[in-house]
């Protein structure tokens, strides 16, 4: 996947023949991070803290549902994906990219959690047959994240 051009709020990416099915496979895994995984506070939860924690969990769950709906709409939108020769063109707005980054990082972090949250250099982590799908999902999500970040970094800092 690479950025072809950007004009105003539109970023057009080229997806190679393998990129599109891989992107779909990664995005179809969403959500991966377990719900209620994130504590609001790491220390001494109070009664107020418990209420706030449950409000946070609800807000994150709602966000997830919205992301899932948006994701399905994106993957089915023929105007966003246009066949070109052997590959595809994917057109995204800056807002699309922002939430795609969130979705991709959910897949990346969630897969990492399933792998047991290895602390060592991830390049040294050797998956077995059982954990291979999660390791691949983590790496592929990271690949697409990097391409999206490269595309918007220049835009944001100028």
């Amino acid at each position, binding site marked *: 996947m690479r950025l072809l051009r950007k004009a105003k709020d539109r970023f057009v990416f080229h997806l190679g023949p393998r990129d599109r099915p891989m992107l779909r496979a990664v995005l179809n895994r969403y959500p991966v*991070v377990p719900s209620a995984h*994130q*504590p*609001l*506070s*790491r*220390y001494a939860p109070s009664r107020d803290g418990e209420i*706030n924690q449950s*409000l*946070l969990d609800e*807000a*994150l769950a709602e*966000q997830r549902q919205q992301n899932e709906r948006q994701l399905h709409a994106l993957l089915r939108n023929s105007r966003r994906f246009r066949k070109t020769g052997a590959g595809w063109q994917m057109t995204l707005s800056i807002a699309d990219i*922002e939430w795609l*980054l*969130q979705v991709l*990082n*959910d897949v*990346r*972090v*969630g897969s*990492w959690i399933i792998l047991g*949250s*290895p*602390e060592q*250099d*991830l390049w040294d982590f050797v998956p077995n047959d059982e954990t291979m799908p999660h390791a691949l999902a*983590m790496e592929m999500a*990271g690949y697409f*994240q*990097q391409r999206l*970040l490269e595309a*918007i*970094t220049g835009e*944001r*800092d100028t």
Partner: protein
Amino acid sequence: MAETATPGVAPRIDPDKESKSKSGLEPGYLVICWNDPVNFMDYVTHVFQMVFGWQRKKAEFHMLQVHELGKSVLTRESMEKAEHYVHQLQKYSLHASMERDE
């Protein structure tokens, strides 16, 4: 960006309105980001810029603190604002929490 000029005359401070001691202020909450080795450095920098509206340099400073020290205190806020920021950071799947600033 140009630095802000220092005024030549010091502002008058009404003794009754001087800052209270820390314990007299509204309790503050620290928004902390913790290190997860799975997150890309560029990604964490990007998220800090988006959530806090920081310049890249400041965002990178805090990202490096997270990376090298295991955590970074990003800001001190009221409870409501701290909750808002933690929610925003967690939407990006960053490991963030809020702790009372004793």
